[in-house]
């Protein structure tokens, strides 16, 4: 029983850590498939966390989730206005959005709550227990006794898989990412498609941020996104730009982090930072083609027109 209990708590922790990554990375998958790499995703996550906190305090946890999504979407919209509409360099613009978001969320937070040392207490999103499934030993609590954001992540995987690879809109979106010129010649509004994809990614990253503040921790702290947006970009790479792959990769990243916490509790001498580095190393290996070639969309990070 002890083993099952340990496994179960490990899984709960791994899933909890993976879910924000799944959400943000699924959004980013759509954005990158449309040819836009948004390094400002980290900014959307932290705005999502803050928006979630403010929304939840004002009108309850579900309003918080909506506010978080909206805040993340706004940050992405700012990025898109520059990187898509003005056609500025995606990397530089994304960096600016991230730096600025970390700064301004801190500024908003401090002006709203002051620089107290006290942790903020937020109303959290309750878990929904799925009948029967949640009783499965070890797996049940981890996968089927969770907040709505987790189920949203589940639902999005097949939906996005269908959207990207089976639907007409997915075909259009991928064409924009692979070859914006060809897409344009086919009558596809390239800039508008990219705008929408980026904003969708921002909404998802916002939900991921709100999950951090309203599900995972129940509080908000400056810089609490802690690189989750950047990790999501690595997750997209390791997941080879497909929703299924992204989920697997996110669970892997989440698992590595959960393992690190578990090991830390057991034995402080284990080199747990190496576990945290492992997913990144594997992402690099994936790009290098160690387990099959991961090809980024051809038009990724390229401005358009030209």
């Amino acid at each position: 029983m002890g083993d099952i209990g340990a496994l179960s708590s490990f899984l709960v922790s791994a899933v909890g850590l993976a879910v924000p990554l799944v959400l943000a990375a699924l959004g980013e998958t759509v954005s990158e498939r449309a040819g836009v790499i948004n390094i400002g995703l980290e900014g959307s996550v932290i705005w999502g966390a803050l928006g979630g906190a403010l929304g939840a305090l004002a009108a309850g946890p579900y309003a918080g989730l909506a506010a978080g999504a909206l805040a993340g979407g706004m940050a992405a919209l700012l990025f898109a206005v520059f990187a898509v509409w003005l056609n500025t360099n995606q990397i530089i613009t994304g960096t600016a959005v991230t730096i600025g978001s970390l700064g301004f969320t801190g500024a908003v937070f401090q002006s709203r709550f002051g620089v107290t040392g006290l942790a903020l207490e937020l109303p959290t999103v309750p878990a929904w227990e799925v009948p029967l499934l949640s009783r499965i030993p070890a797996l049940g609590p981890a996968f089927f006794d969770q907040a709505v954001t987790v189920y949203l992540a589940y639902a999005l995987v097949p939906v996005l898989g269908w959207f990207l690879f089976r639907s007409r809109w997915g075909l259009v979106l991928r064409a924009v990412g692979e070859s914006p010129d060809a897409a344009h010649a086919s009558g596809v509004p390239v800039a508008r498609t990219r705008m929408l994809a980026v904003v969708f990614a921002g909404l998802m990253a916002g939900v991921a941020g709100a999950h951090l503040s309203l599900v995972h921790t129940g509080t908000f702290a400056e810089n609490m996104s802690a690189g989750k947006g950047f990790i999501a970009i690595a997750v997209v790479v390791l997941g080879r730009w497909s929703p299924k792959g992204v989920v697997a990769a996110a669970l892997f990243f989440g698992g590595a982090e959960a393992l690190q916490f578990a090991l830390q509790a057991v034995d402080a001498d284990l080199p747990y930072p190496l576990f945290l580095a492992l997913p990144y190393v594997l992402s690099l290996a994936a790009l290098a083609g160690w387990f099959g070639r991961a090809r980024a969309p051809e038009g990724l990070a390229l401005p358009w027109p030209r």
Partner: protein
Amino acid sequence: MSTRNGPCERRGGSESSGLAARLRDVTKRFGPVTALEGVSFDLVPGEIHGLLGENGAGKTTLARVLGGLLTPDEGRVEIGGCEVALRSARDARALGVAMVHQHFSLVPRFSGLENIALFNGGAWTKRGMAAPGYRERVEARARELKLEVELDLPVEGLGVGARQRIEILKALMSETSVLLLDEPTAVLAPREVDGLFAVLKEVARAGTGIVLVAHKLDEVLAAADRVTVLRRGGWVLTREAASVSAGELAEAMVGGAVGGHLARGAAGGQRPTVDRGRTAMDERRAATPAADQLVGTADPAPVASLRGVTTIRDGEPALRHVNAAVKRGEILGIAGVDGNGQRELARVLARIRTPDEGDATLPAEVGWIPQDRAEEGLVNGFTISENVAFALHGKDSCRKGPWLDWAGIEETAAELVREMDVRATSSTATAANLSGGNQQKVVTGREFLRSADLLVAESPTRGLDVKATVAVRSRIAALARHGDHPPGVVLISADLDEILELSDRIAVMVRGRLIPVPRDAHNPRDIGELMLGARVRPDENADGHAGETRNTVRGPEGSTPGARSAGGGPP
């Protein structure tokens, strides 16, 4: 969509005007440049309408206006009898207008089917779902049009002809009243051109009006029912193809005097020369070691020679046992349809590529005017001096110790600008701000500065207007004949006029082989036959679509000499 309104809500085709499409007094400007000025044009259902003009005449602009890719500044566009305001290719598409671009607009990693589906999004899906039987419809349509297409492989792995067929099929999947083809033959081998025209005739028979943009007279005359000529953005004439001669069209395209000059400048005729004294440019050239070695020698030996050169590319031989030699002061013309190994030959000659077999004896430095001047010949964001420094930055004359001698380079560039008669729009001109002709003059002058021994010119006038073409050709001729130690020149071109005008000796490149052309076969017809693969049947020859070949009387027998070496001197 804002275009379908009022009485034109339902597109009836031709009930009001009987025309598939019509432009009325259309003007389109790009900044201060007027690309189209008050041009009117109509397209009858079921006709193939050739649209002729030199590069820059406005024919592509016209096609793009019709295709919804450009919005005219003035004038009206009518499709199927209704005035429309096309804001995008999608708008045009909805009205039955399809465009096949010069540079294919296929997504490389998508399959043929996916590409076709992308272009025909609405037809492919119902509420976003893949419609059942779509593939079958595509295949059926391909059979109808007698188009052989590969639907399942990513198009990035297909040849140009195969990609073009997908492009055409994709355009014709839905009901199409207007089909626009922008220079569709530019990328095709001659045989594929015939196949394309057969398809187009089939399509036209079904009632689609086809606009065929081209700049080759013979092709247009072979395929079109009517012809419209544009010049410098203005309309010149529209005629039945049957009632107009190639000469009339040529004159209409180039506007008389200029074209006459081009036609007269054949090999042996009077060559334009550049009068110049001994200049800083010469000094600089003389200072290079390669030039020094040869000063004062009479030099009977070739300045460059290839013996049995073979190169392998992607597992296939790109060059096969090529023998060639060129002497100082002579121009060796190498004719051929694009893609027969010319690119590889240029790379070998320029010393970028070493042969896998055989010997290449080449000067230490070789000038190379690459085909793609915008992407390879120049850096668009660099100024003229910086682009000159590109070729010269390794030479001692451009350095002071470890430093670049910018003052010297700028002096050289200024000299080049004067010598080559480069017209820069402003004093701080970057390459991007120069016209195509002036860009090419910069490249030509620079490559001559790089090497006074061997100059490789690869399609040096492609895409230039008539005047720039005359200027660049005369510069190349002048360089090859100038001074005591002129360079040897290898002129690689698909343009027979150019080859015949400039070359002392001619060879033809076919599938990696270099076939010499004897002097008595220096005419378009014989060389044209060699370019097509040397195995032309008389019956194909009789209705030969190469218009100018009709003028000559030689039969095909005399035109296929044995695989003799192109080396040695002129006969």
